[in-house]
């Protein structure tokens, strides 16, 4: 007989991580909680975590997602800066 269980207490909310809106979903599996962080568009999972409490699971998932989001923001800043520099060079 397969040992089965059901996920419970699912919650989803949006919040900002490093200036980017993300979706945080979490649910209870047996005696632990599992959490995912997704970017809103296109909806990719960018962080995962689990823990004894929902807060712990979500904190781990957010910690997992943060470096990638910060790196994306840094690259976007770099691209904008480069474009602005090229624009100012062209106008000289």
């Amino acid at each position, binding site marked *: 007989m397969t040992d*089965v269980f059901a996920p419970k207490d699912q919650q989803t909310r949006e919040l900002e991580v490093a200036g980017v809106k*993300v979706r945080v979903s979490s649910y209870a*599996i047996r005696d632990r909680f599992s959490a995912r962080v997704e970017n809103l568009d296109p909806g990719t999972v960018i962080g995962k975590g*689990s823990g004894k409490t929902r807060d712990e699971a979500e904190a781990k998932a957010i910690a997992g997602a943060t470096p990638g989001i910060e790196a*994306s923001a840094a690259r976007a800043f770099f691209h904008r800066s480069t474009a602005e520099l090229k624009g100012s060079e062209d106008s000289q």
Partner: protein
Amino acid sequence: MSSYAHPQTLVDTAWVDEHRDEDLRVVEIDVDRYSYEEGHIPGATAWDWSRQLADQRTRDILSKAQFEALMGNAGITPESTVILYGDNNNWFAAWALWQMKIYGHKDVRLMNGGRKKWLAEGRPLTLEEPKIARAKYVALDADTSLRGLLASVRERVAADKIHLVDVRSGPEFTGEILAPPGLPETCQRGGHIPGASNIPWGMVCNDDGTFKSRDELVALYREQGVTGERPVVTYCRIGERSSHSWFALKYLIGWEAIENYDGSWTEWGNLVGAAIER
């Protein structure tokens, strides 16, 4: 309201729950095994998309021999009914289905709504991995009509012979960003393939991740001039979001000439000498 062109390629969560003790092969496909190991549909095995559904050395789909080995190890024969589902709104499950169709598997179905819907409905999970008896799988030769390759796509773009559907987000399409937030940039340039229409993958789904009706899908694509009268080629960043839209166009709407260009923007955006639009 019209029915899906090939309704047998889609099953709902209730059906899978009801039939999971029957002779099905249920496979969860995610970017890795993390979610599967937290709990999966009883009886399901797992495929790791990044390691098992692509040739990492050549950046290609599986060879016929690799595909046969994957199927055999999962206890799948050419006669098996295979149900695929997964994380990320079934993107990777759709990628697996696309390859199974390339190699001629007859009965493979997506579970509508994927893992997210199964969890949202509080359906049963287990940690137990099924004991699988290896099977012999003889695949058909690859059906290349389902796949867009660079040379062919490039030639037909130049001749305006295809309708390209870019399923990435708006900011990716315009080149405002080179990758979705949190993901690595894999190309030198931002923008899209000249002439492409931007119909993001999420527009083919309802809020719960299930596919929209056939009528809604047809209207969605027709609004952007995609009618199926010319071959349609879907692409995204690396080919897995676009396989989700490929499935909707090919099996739910039922237009014939639908290809997934899996080289996608990672390939085109890095090409020397290939024009782009922003």
